């Protein structure tokens, strides 16, 4: 095993909730526990997926890694260095090492900038390159890298003159300007048409191989996560509840929440029209201000027993092969689920095509 490039230890982000005067006087402090103690480590050249529903803290985790938000508690190491509370020069270094691709390609670039302005900005901020000429050459090189060629044609365009896919390529190009080692990709394809989605992911993977990049892929879409990532962590209410190699987590999931998530996914295969989807979960996601005691998933869990809310929250435990799960009943669940799984796996049939 190689050296981990990014390590998060008990990463925590609590946002204070706006309070009324009365609450301040009574000394009530409430917090939105957006990220509530998350630990993982990512190796160089790995694609690590963070999946979960909206509000589970996956995007906040991404922003903590970017240091766009102050870390409330815990530690964050990049390339072995503690960057939890860095400032000044060290933060600048961190900014060059870790970059981010945003979800919405339509809003991730200033509409008044041309692509040249967009790509020049990181160089201007970090004063990279001797002169305009050198910078411009670098910009062209990167544009070729993300397959926006010929560069001349794209340099003078404004973002609105590009298609969604092209925009996301340009956004990727921007992240590459500073030679980063880690890229946080926050739902990079969720707003792109299905027909071009695969193209973007393909390009990203190619870049990863060529440049030795490490990705943190934040998404709610399990299907692309399975396709794109090496390892996967499933988050619920600010905590990782299951983590491991992508195939294992999806095909042999043990946490009831992961099971519900997977059950909810739609797949383009026939014969499902008259089947009711099996989503083993109840109720709605609680607010992050009011996290249930014990196991935070227990109010929605179909397997919950009194221990689940009476005793402390279960920790992530390794059950072999790097597969980790935070559920006290995972062994029983595994036994029950083994039979059902065989039928589910058969759904992934290869489709024949008429032409080609």
């Amino acid at each position: 095993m190689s050296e981990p490039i990014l390590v998060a230890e008990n990463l925590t982000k609590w946002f204070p909730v706006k309070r009324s005067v009365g609450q301040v006087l009574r000394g009530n402090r409430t917090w939105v526990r957006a990220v509530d103690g998350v630990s993982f480590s990512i190796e160089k050249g790995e694609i690590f997926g963070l999946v979960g529903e909206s509000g589970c803290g996956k995007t906040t985790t991404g922003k903590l890694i970017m240091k766009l938000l102050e870390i409330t508690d815990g530690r964050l190491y990049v390339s072995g260095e503690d960057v939890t509370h860095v400032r000044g020069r060290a933060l600048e270094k961190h900014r060059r090492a870790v970059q981010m691709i945003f979800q919405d390609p339509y809003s991730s670039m200033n509409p008044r900038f041309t692509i040249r302005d967009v790509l020049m900005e990181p160089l201007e901020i970090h004063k990279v390159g001797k002169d305009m000429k050198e910078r411009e050459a670098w910009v062209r090189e990167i544009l070729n890298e993300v397959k926006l060629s010929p560069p001349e044609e794209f340099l003078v365009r404004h973002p609105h003159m590009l298609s969604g896919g092209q925009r996301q390529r340009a956004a990727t190009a921007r992240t590459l300007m500073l030679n980063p080692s880690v890229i946080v990709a926050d739902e990079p394809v969720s707003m792109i048409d299905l027909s071009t989605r695969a193209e973007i992911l393909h390009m990203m993977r190619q870049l990863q191989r060529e440049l030795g990049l490490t990705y943190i892929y934040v998404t709610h879409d399990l299907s692309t996560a399975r396709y794109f990532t090496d390892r996967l962590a499933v988050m619920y209410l600010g905590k990782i509840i299951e983590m491991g190699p992508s195939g294992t987590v999806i095909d042999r999931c043990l946490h009831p929440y992961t099971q519900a998530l997977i059950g909810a996914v739609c797949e383009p295969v026939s014969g499902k029209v008259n089947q009711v989807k099996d989503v083993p979960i109840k109720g709605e996601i609680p607010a992050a201000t009011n996290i249930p005691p014990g196991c935070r998933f227990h109010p929605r869990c179909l397997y919950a027993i009194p221990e689940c809310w009476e005793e402390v929250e279960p920790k992530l435990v390794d059950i072999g092969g790097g597969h980790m799960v935070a559920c006290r009943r995972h062994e029983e669940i595994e036994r029950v689920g083994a039979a059902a799984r065989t039928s589910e796996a058969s759904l992934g049939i290869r489709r024949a095509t008429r032409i080609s």
Partner: protein
Amino acid sequence: MAMERVLEVRDLELHYFTRKGVVRAVDKITFDVRQGETLGVVGESGCGKTTMGTALLNMPTPPGRIVGGQILLDGLDILKISEQEIRRRVRWESISMVFQGAMNCLTPVYTIEKQMKETLQQHREMSKEEARTRMKNYLNMVGLADDVLQRYPHELSGGMKQRVVIAMALFLEPRVVICDEPTTALDVVVQAQVINLLKDLKSQVNLSFIFITHDLSIEAEVSDRIMVMYAGQIAELGTSDQIFGPQGPAHPYTQRLLAATPLLHKEVTELAFIPGTPPDLVDPPSGCRFHPRCHVVMDRCLKDEVPLREIEPDHMVACWRCFHE
């Protein structure tokens, strides 16, 4: 399947008259909706699927205008009757619609009860008690408690609003319910719940759905027949088995779209994609509109406009490759 046709659309044309020129958003499409089935309409953004949905209510958003074709509702052309007639006989009475972004489809200043009652009273003569019972019945049917009636829209979560809107679309028992991306803004779990709800309702009430979405996977879950749209036209129209079955779809566009969708329980190393971007509908490509992006393009595709033809029972395709002449 020889089921009764509820809605027949013939050569429907809807154009947007913009400064840039005439956008042919819906360009001569012909299809029908049968009693008790769900017809899925799928396509990329900007292919005209939502526009088509509003056209069925004869409610194009300006600067759009229906410029040709027929919409036959049980044989009656709703494009020929007066606005008042449409309001009385078509809208909600026969065809109701769950709009995209249902969160914004409830008037923020009224309680749910007021909005539902208002709609009921517009179409049905009934006592207060009857109305109340009916509203409660339908709310319960979509899994909501009675007390939702007294709430204002902002007091409900997104999923609840979605359910209210669905309840409202159903409670006049129309012939056809158009659902425009009813699950797009929702989380995976809630989305699955809404899909289950729709499936459930379909088994309870005998009405037809038109289910518009950009996501093929969802169509596979809900639709009996699937209509694939590309650039304002129908590319392929077939049953769920024909499209998603082992045989696979016929149109190269559908094929590629399907191949671009990753499968959850299958290790896939390479996904397909379609190069290029959808065409500008002010000046669409000649011949087959898909030809610039097609991987099996022929000479003929560039020149001749391609008709929609039946290649097997219930399976229509608009592709020169598929016609054996």
